[in-house]
């Protein structure tokens, strides 16, 4: 299988990473060599194997739904690239 430029553009859209033509070509080259390596897995029969999602074989514990970090609003807002009073600001989304 080869990943073409059209696919690269599609993945870049899904990833929300802008990619120009030059970068797309470089990425296609890299991804193709990586996938060539990854496709070694196809040699392996895994038909009746259960997928492993987590090595930690625990059941999730319940906890009380309570606020523990209080009064850090200002510290959180300070990290924002653009903020106005108590809000995060983004480019206009409604015309």
């Amino acid at each position, binding site marked *: 299988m080869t990943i073409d430029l059209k696919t690269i553009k599609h993945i870049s859209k899904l990833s929300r990473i802008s*990619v120009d033509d030059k970068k797309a070509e470089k990425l296609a080259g890299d991804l193709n060599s990586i996938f060539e390596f990854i496709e070694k897995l196809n040699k392996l029969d895994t038909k009746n194997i259960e997928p492993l999602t987590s090595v930690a074989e625990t059941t999730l514990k319940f906890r009380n739904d309570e606020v523990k970090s209080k009064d850090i609003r200002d510290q959180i807002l300070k*990290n924002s690239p653009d903020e106005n009073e108590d809000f995060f600001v983004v480019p206009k*989304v409604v015309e």
Partner: protein
Amino acid sequence: MSDITSQTLVELVKNIKEKKISSEETTKAFIERGEKSKDLNTYITEDFSSALQKAKKFDQKPNFDLKLPGIPMAVKDLFCTNGVKTTAGSKILSNFIPPYESTVTQNIWNEGAILLGKLNCDEFAMGSSNETSFFGNVQSPIDKDLVPGGSSGGSASALAANLTPITIGTDTGGSIRQPASFTGTVGLKPTYGSCSRYGIVAFASSLDQAGPMSKDVKDCALLQEIISTYDEKDSTSIDFKRNEYSKELTNNIKGKKIGIPKEYRVDGMPKEIEDLWAKGIEYVKDCGAEIVEISLPHTNYALPAYYIVAPAEASSNLARYDGVKYGFRSKGENLIDMYEKTRSEGFGAEVQRRIMIGTYVLSSGYYDAYYLKAQKVRKLIKNDFDEVYKKVDAILTPSTPSAAFKIGEKTNDPVSMYLNDIFTVPVNLAGLPAISIPAGVDTKGYPLGLQIIGKAFDEQNILNIAYAMEEKIQFKNKITDWWIK
């Protein structure tokens, strides 16, 4: 008494407790050496003046019951530190100041340690040479223009160069053990669920583990005992009975069965690594352990499976960096344009590559062929280990297929860079603990490490084996201070 910065953690703690040195003297010594070592580029953020103040405060009212009384240390810049910039080696977090502390670092400060600063690493811990950091390459103190390994490259370099007495890193596919091996230091990747992931910038959540990096095994055991706690803030933290690793440390490994997996004898492995491994086998035999030939038949499939699982989880974890609530933002014509430009300019090439791989393998129509397939292979790899652990107590392998390489040598070939993690990655996929200890040098004099892999939650056993081997090996790191003018 030897120079302060060349002492081990255990020595420093003893000297501070016996009032032979103060916390201020100790902290000053590491700061001064740090100031002279800027060429190594180990620090992203120095917190020196605040460290000195904390040391003075400690000396005024010392508490010698603590395990790290007034000990200064620097940590990988992947751990969130309350009020101190945390970048993960990325432009996208280059101005991020966390309003909270990671559990692992909190555990360290609770025992009296003092933060010196934040250490360089590969961007979001994605790399094996510390060359993907937005803040530049890290030089290895071993030789000029040599990589320190990665992703915990700044940690390994600072430790080997005596800029910090001990440090912590994170290990997703080898990021503690490989740099430890490259710099002649000790690095432990604990069992998945042993150390809390709370407050660590996430890379691949089902693989990430924090762990200690140190100059010797005793120091490693002491730090592991401090950082490994059950934490309800991490849903995958496991509540098991933890040993007092440093107190229970013993070099008596008589009768232990050590497995030697034939699949780790890979094509093109340098003879010096073969020889080192053979020497390691002799050492454990000398200690009274028994050698057992074993097979881990799916070893060859670990790396390809890892390069599906890790990028898939990364693409999901890194979706949060959108330029809205924190971090770098680029100007865009509209919201989507802002997202796309922010992420294109904020992430480096390797991180973008992995996000793209991850997005692709999770995308509609490919999920079963790649992601599900990789999870099944992961199961087979874990089964391999479960099977051999019916017969052996631990496994001995080389840590890496080669010694450290030069800066720039592998940057244009991602696959050859990935192959560096061939011996470390299976351990992460199976969630097991493993330690790398320095065991020799190659023809150029560059350090080489051996890896001991344990059963889940059996850190004590691999620490003991490492401790026994360390006594036999008597490794001495040759650091010439070439970077100090």
